[in-house]
């Protein structure tokens, strides 16, 4: 951070802006005073000597012509306050001394003596101090604003790439665990089951206790097979739905394909989904794809579990405003929305986090209609192994 601040201090654009704001603010303040005090003195005819107004103006402008370029040239921005105060004071003294000199030369102050300092020097000095303080404050303020904007932009960038890294990491872990479940664990279970079968086969058939042991072991083996076939596979899919890498429409189709054939399914995956998920332009980001697949899964599972549906209607569509619509209709009877609702709470929250929502209503098939909206944001992320260059 310190290094970054130092780099910003050396930014030539920032330095130029600082000079401009500082000398500009001082210039405007002094200009107002230069005109104001000259006119005031002339109108009130202070000293009663009928000094022409341009004489006073000229003296003021000489001071202004020294102070403003001085403020421009001095490296005030990079100075510490211990250097800044004396430098600016010196600048002011130079300007005021020059003003007095010019005033004396033009006979505004009759005698040629340097001291005592003329009475109207005090307001001029005060005006100068105010101008300088105002200028430094203004330039510093502008400087801080710029730095702030820059820091914000930097933070946003860091946050965005951190989020991206987090997404990629989540995805990697999900995939690894899913592959582990799908591969290693499944194979271990197959080996165990095979070994159990051999053990059952090798039990001496003559012994009466063998029959009950065999029945017991067979039960264990069947449970193991069921666990492997269903639970492990389901869990693997939950972590990383198959086809997710290939796109939302693929993941959806694969999910729908697994619905038992005895259930009538009319599914429409609109062309707009495939178009939105075009990998050559990055496609739908992984976490949104995962969420959408989860919504679809939940909708189908709910219809089958609670609604005991025989018929499903599924629609996936992306509208002109890049909002993904997922609709699952069922013909389930005896479904109460409240029973289904509780299971959907988490999904609804996750959809809301992304600016979407989820609704449960009575549907056209006689059962419920689950409709979810998910606004799509397209990141630069290109899925691993899916870059399509044409």
């Amino acid at each position, binding site marked *: 951070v310190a290094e970054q601040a130092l780099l910003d201090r050396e930014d030539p654009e920032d330095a130029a802006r600082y000079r401009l704001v500082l000398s500009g603010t001082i210039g405007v303040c002094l200009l107002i005073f230069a005109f104001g005090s000259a006119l005031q003195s002339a109108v009130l005819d202070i000293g009663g000597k009928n000094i022409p107004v341009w004489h006073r103006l000229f003296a003021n402008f000489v001071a202004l012509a020294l102070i403003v370029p001085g403020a421009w040239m001095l490296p005030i921005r990079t100075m510490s306050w211990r250097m800044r105060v004396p430098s600016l004071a010196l600048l002011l003294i130079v300007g005021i001394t020059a003003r007095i000199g010019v005033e004396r030369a033009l006979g505004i102050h009759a005698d040629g003596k340097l001291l005592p300092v003329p009475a109207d020097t005090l307001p001029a000095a005060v005006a100068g101090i105010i101008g300088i303080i105002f200028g430094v404050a203004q330039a510093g303020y502008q400087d801080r604003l710029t730095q702030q904007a820059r820091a914000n932009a930097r933070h946003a960038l860091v946050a965005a790439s951190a989020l991206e890294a987090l997404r990629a990491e989540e995805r990697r872990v999900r995939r690894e665990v899913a592959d582990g479940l799908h591969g290693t664990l499944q194979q271990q279970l197959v080996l165990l089951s095979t070994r159990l079968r051999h053990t059952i086969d090798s039990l001496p058939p003559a012994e009466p206790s063998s029959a009950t042991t065999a029945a017991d072991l067979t039960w264990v083996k069947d449970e193991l097979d069921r666990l492997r076939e269903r639970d492990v596979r389901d869990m693997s899919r939950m972590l990383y739905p*198959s*086809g997710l*890498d*290939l*796109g939302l*429409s*693929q993941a959806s*189709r*694969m999910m729908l*394909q*697994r*619905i*038992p*054939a*005895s*259930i*009538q*399914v*009319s599914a429409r995956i609109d062309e707009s989904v*495939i178009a939105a998920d075009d*990998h050559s332009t990055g496609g739908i980001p992984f976490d949104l794809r995962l969420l959408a697949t989860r919504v679809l899964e939940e909708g189908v599972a709910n219809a089958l579990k609670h609604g005991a549906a*025989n*018929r499903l209607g599924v629609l996936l569509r992306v509208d002109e405003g890049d909002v993904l619509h997922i609709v699952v209709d069922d013909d389930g009877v005896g479904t109460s929305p409240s029973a289904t609702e509780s299971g959907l709470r988490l999904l609804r929250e996750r959809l809301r986090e992304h600016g979407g929502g989820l609704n449960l209503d009575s549907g056209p098939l006689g059962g419920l209609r689950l409709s979810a909206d998910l606004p799509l944001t397209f990141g630069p992320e290109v899925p691993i*192994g*899916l*870059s*399509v260059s*044409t």
Partner: protein
Amino acid sequence: VKAEAGSPLRVAVVEDHQLYREMLVSALASQEGIAVTVTAAGAQEARALISPGSIDVAVLDVELADGNGVALGIQLRRKDPNVGVMLLSSHDVMELLLDLPPDVRRGWSYLSKSSAVSIEIVTRALRATAGGRTVLDPELVHRAVPRRGSSLARLTPRQLEVLQLLATGLSNTGIAERLEISERSIENHLNLAYAALDLPKSQNSRVSAVLRFIEETSRG
């Protein structure tokens, strides 16, 4: 589409798993009338090595380390409309064939690495694919059950059987031999099946019927 009889079928094998690739290449090389002319370990290498007109059919792994077989297949096909594409995957991702752009939909096949597929079946599928047909993994086809209420469920058992064999890459003659009925009645069964499925007239009925088969079945 296919090279004339006599000259061998030119095959490209793109697979990032070295052992699998080498085994596949040597198994294919042992087959009569097959010449593996290109082997590549990745999408980029394949794009560099395969020039239009140099191969008849490409065997592509879906999950390549540096890309994806589907995208590669689409590119190869657009450069050379005569190339057949056979996808290989260790997962059941047959649905991939449904989302292919319409201009490249003919002549895509799918075999699963985890199915018990013999080299004879691969060879037969390669020939059919090079001929513009769509061939599906036989094991997956036989496991597939038509979904209730779908157009596929309207077929008679015989029509469905014929369609299943068609989906595994058999020609009408091949189906006739398998079912021990005349080729003429196979044609009849197919025409009735096409009518029952109400296939789009504009496209190749054989390909459309196979795609419909994927769309309207469950493989549990």
